[in-house]
């Protein structure tokens, strides 16, 4: 008896199958779209943005030291390596990494190269000066502090992330 009750009519069978197949097809089309739409959001948090500079935390001192490291750049299909530099040192409890790009017009600053002000960053182009923590010294051309790298310490090794502006 119960078998009879549950019998599926031809019309019902067709409706079920068509809905099922149609659903599969729709899902097959939508899934890649959803994935594409979400992709940038999934990527942003990735760790790969941080680059090791091959220096451990113990090797740091209060004296800024220059490190060069390479970052891989993707420009369309063209991949290239770019050399970047940073001035890394211990600032109180934290590790600080400053970008060497002068905030005036983009020359490269150096630590302690100006004989009159050995404890400062010095820009050779227009004699801009910055304090040890990157603060620009009033009366010199730069108008804002040196940019800072995001710093992460993993297992005692130092990793640098993106460069942030301060003002």
């Amino acid at each position, binding site marked *: 008896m119960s078998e009879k009750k549950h019998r599926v009519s031809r019309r019902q069978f067709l409706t079920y199958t068509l809905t099922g197949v149609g659903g599969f097809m729709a899902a097959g089309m939508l899934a890649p779209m959803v994935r594409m739409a979400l992709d940038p959001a999934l990527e942003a948090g990735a760790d790969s943005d941080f680059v090791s500079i091959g220096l451990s935390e113990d090797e740091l001192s209060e004296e800024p030291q220059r490190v060069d490291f*390479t970052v891989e750049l993707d420009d369309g299909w063209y991949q290239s390596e770019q050399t970047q530099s940073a001035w890394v040192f211990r600032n109180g409890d934290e590790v600080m990494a400053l970008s060497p790009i*002068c905030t*005036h017009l*983009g020359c490269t600053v150096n630590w302690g190269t100006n004989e009159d002000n050995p404890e400062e960053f010095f*820009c*050779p*182009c227009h004699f801009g000066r910055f304090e040890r923590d990157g603060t620009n010294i009033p009366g010199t051309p730069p108008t804002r502090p040196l940019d800072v790298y995001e710093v992460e310490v993993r297992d005692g090794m130092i990793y640098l992330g993106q460069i942030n502006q301060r003002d």
Partner: protein
Amino acid sequence: MKWTGQDTVVYEKAKEYVDTAVIPLLPVAGGKEQQESVMMGEFTQYLTEYLEKQYMGRVYLLPPFTYLKEESGEEKKNRLSAWAAHFEKHGFKFFLFVTADMQWRKISVEEAGELVWIPAFSVHDMEPGKRHQAIEQQAQQIIPLMTQQWT
């Protein structure tokens, strides 16, 4: 600054700060001498680009001054002086000519600017990190010649 649209925009705004022109002097030759000419050109390009990167706020890297090997010294000198004179009229005070070509050692261009002659080495087959180091080393020799003019 480089010879690009983006940098000319910055230059227009910061003209008074950019007073030094760097001009690479590149010999051009075909046939047997082509390889050497390319090698010199590539080396000079890396070297001047390094200078530009370090001192971009004060230095404008102009397009290379090119010439055929058979062009006479007198002619080259006149043409180069004309370049310098032209840019001097437009606000540049210091000129640095960078070359790997021996010929320039016999041509005096002191009135137009500072000439730096540096023997070239082949850079195309060097691994990027090594190349950067080697170029930096060579550039350190030139930099004082440039910065001395500023003070």
